[in-house]
């Protein structure tokens, strides 16, 4: 059985940018061929299924390296199944799951459970991340090598910073030995001081305790220093402030092995959008000022920010339909990430090729996989409809949770089809 994706522009930066057809056989890309304009050239192909992708862009499968799947432990918010259905609908052929499940993914048993469950489902793929410390408690190292053998691609205590600088240093050194990246949730808790939104006029106006930019950048600067000390790679999650962007920019200039991501909400919204105690605008780090938003865009433009990840954080009404300061941090993002990011292309900040790098190629590189669109490679592909304009409606989400600040927002461009291992897992 073969599938022919025809009529599309194939865009894999550094590899191909051309109007070609892709022939997929079983789970592999079999060939990339000149478009056929005459159906008859298909020959005897009753065993070939055609996907008409005229006007679409075929890109390497998008990868979201920052996703909370919630299973095991919080299945009422999301399961591996609903999370991966959301990923597929969002155009992602793979995601990295965060380890803050219950129990925490700090051992190979939990890692295997996640991978086995994902394999059974045959939807988008999961590359789990494991905890740095046991229980993500910040005290003792977890069995990182054992988890790596089971399939984790990175370690992180996401949601919690590693406060002990010496332990962080040792974690970096230890991971360097296995060539496993460390993802950092950069937050200095004493200065964040239990705040719920960005410190500034709007926090003052609403009477909400603020989190200053320095809560993030202090830790970014610390971990740049630790990366320099140890020579280990550090990847900063969800960068939101101009100070962090600048610190990482300077570190990269010095040749420090740091990379970073931001999330679509940080280049789309600001703290001015936090209104009427709507907890769907509460996430950590918080929405920052317009100046920060601009700095994040600039960081994406000049390459300081390597990639876009959604920090998909499903929460139910139990956590969200409460007082603002008591509400859980986080928003869902898998099913809005591509559309929101495409705005950067429509607005002329990024080329489509740059966006593909930030949503497919760079994420793959960070976690050490290869997703080039080449004959012989696994057919993990995303087909993007760059022109389709629609209004975001949380009721259409496959995710179990609907906690998005983007309800009703009009966006342009969306996933048209998602293919994993040669199988269509989502089609509009």
């Amino acid at each position, binding site marked *: 059985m073969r599938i022919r994706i025809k009529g599309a522009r194939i865009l894999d930066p550094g590899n191909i940018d051309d109007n070609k057809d892709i022939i997929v056989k079983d789970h592999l890309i079999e060939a990339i061929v000149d478009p056929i304009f005459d159906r008859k050239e298909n020959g005897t192909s009753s065993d070939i299924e055609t996907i008409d992708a005229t006007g679409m862009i075929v890109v390497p499968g998008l990868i979201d390296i920052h996703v909370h799947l919630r299973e095991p432990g919080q299945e009422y918010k999301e399961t591996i199944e609903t999370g991966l259905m959301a990923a597929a609908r969002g155009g992602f052929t793979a995601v990295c799951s965060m380890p803050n499940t219950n129990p925490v993914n700090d051992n190979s048993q939990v890692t295997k459970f996640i991978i086995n469950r994902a394999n059974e489902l045959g939807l988008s793929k999961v590359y789990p991340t494991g905890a740095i410390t046991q229980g993500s408690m910040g005290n003792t190292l977890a069995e990182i090598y054992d988890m790596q053998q089971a399939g984790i691609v990175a370690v992180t205590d996401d949601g919690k910073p590693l406060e002990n600088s010496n332990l962080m240093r040792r974690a970096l050194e230890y991971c360097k030995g296995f060539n496993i990246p460390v993802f950092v949730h950069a937050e200095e808790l004493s200065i964040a001081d239990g705040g719920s939104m960005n410190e500034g006029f709007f926090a003052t106006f609403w009477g909400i305790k603020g989190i200053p930019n320095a809560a993030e950048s202090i830790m970014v600067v610390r971990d740049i220093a630790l990366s320099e000390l140890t020579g280990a790679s550090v990847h900063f999650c969800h960068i939101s402030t101009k100070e962090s962007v600048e610190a990482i920019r300077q570190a990269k200039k010095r040749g420090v092995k740091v990379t970073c991501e931001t999330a679509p909400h940080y280049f789309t919204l600001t703290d001015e959008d936090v209104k009427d*105690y709507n907890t769907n605008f509460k996430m950590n780090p918080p929405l920052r000022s317009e100046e920060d938003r601009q700095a994040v865009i600039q960081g994406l433009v000049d390459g300081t920010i390597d990639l876009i990840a959604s920090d998909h954080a499903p929460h139910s009404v139990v956590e969200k339909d409460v007082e603002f300061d*008591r509400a859980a941090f986080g928003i869902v993002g898998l099913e809005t990430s591509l559309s929101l990011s495409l705005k950067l292309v429509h607005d002329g900040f990024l080329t489509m090729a740059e966006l593909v790098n930030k949503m497919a190629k760079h994420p793959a590189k960070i976690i050490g996989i290869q997703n080039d669109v080449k004959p012989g490679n696994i057919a993990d592909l995303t087909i993007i409809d760059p022109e389709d304009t629609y209004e975001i409606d949380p009721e259409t989400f496959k995710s179990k949770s609907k906690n998005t600040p983007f309800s009703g927002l009009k966006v342009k461009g969306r996933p048209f089809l998602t293919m994993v291992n040669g199988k269509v897992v989502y089609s509009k």
Partner: protein
Amino acid sequence: MRFTKKDILDIESLEPREISMILDTAQGMKEISERPVKKVPTLRGKTIVLFFQEPSTRTKLSFDTAAKRLSADSISISKSSSSIVKGETLIDTAKNLEAMKPDVIVLRHPSSGAPHLIAKRVNASVINAGDGIHAHPSQALLDMMSVREKKGKIEGLNISIIGDIAHSRVARSDITGFSKMGANVCICAPETMIPMGVENLGCSVSPNMETCIEGADVIMMLRIQKERQDNILFPTEREYATLFGLNKARLNLAKKDVIVMHPGPMNRGVEISSDVADSDSSMILEQVTNGVALRMALFYLVAGGSRHADSD
């Protein structure tokens, strides 16, 4: 003119003409408390729930007295007696209260925005009796009432507010209210107690207390909340009193007919010296008296029938 607001959530959501209407109504209510029989039948048959999830003596008693003087039935629930301690969410508690058909719910809550959260979900009018560090509209309104009563106007007056602005819902509501009504509001506190961007609420920030109160018509002292600070905002009460306490010498920098206010409870010898608190300039007890009249006015305006039931 009709009062059409269903809820009193904060000062931001009130138009200046609505504020004036509330103050006028309150002024009319004041006389009721002077009568030998301090009760009118205006809100007979109305049910008012006082839902206080934070400790309060004066505000709760003031709302309760106001309700009773208008013949409404008032019922109090506090945090320890409510199902909140059993893990019920605020929205569920509010919906359960709503099921008993109250006309007004007065809510005090430690989280900013809590009254806004329930106001959207209940038909009863919601009056915010203080939410987190956000707003305390009835306090600001009674402050405006007291100033207007004494000075005959609010517009053009110099109002100085001294103290922990960052953690004070009274300060936020007063700054917004007085500046909305045309006063010049100046605030002063240690830098640790000045929230970011506060000048955009409509006030200026003074570097020291002397500058702030020079030429003031009104000085409002805020309570130092001992339970909130662990010596990280200022070192000692002694040093605080030296820099930001209101004493006779500082009072002389203000206008001769200055009035001194304090939302209470006072820390004598810290933010205000006893001789100032007990001086002729002090309006502190008058504020408490006006508080009852002001809250009667709020009950009357939201539940007394002048508001169209379907206007919201």
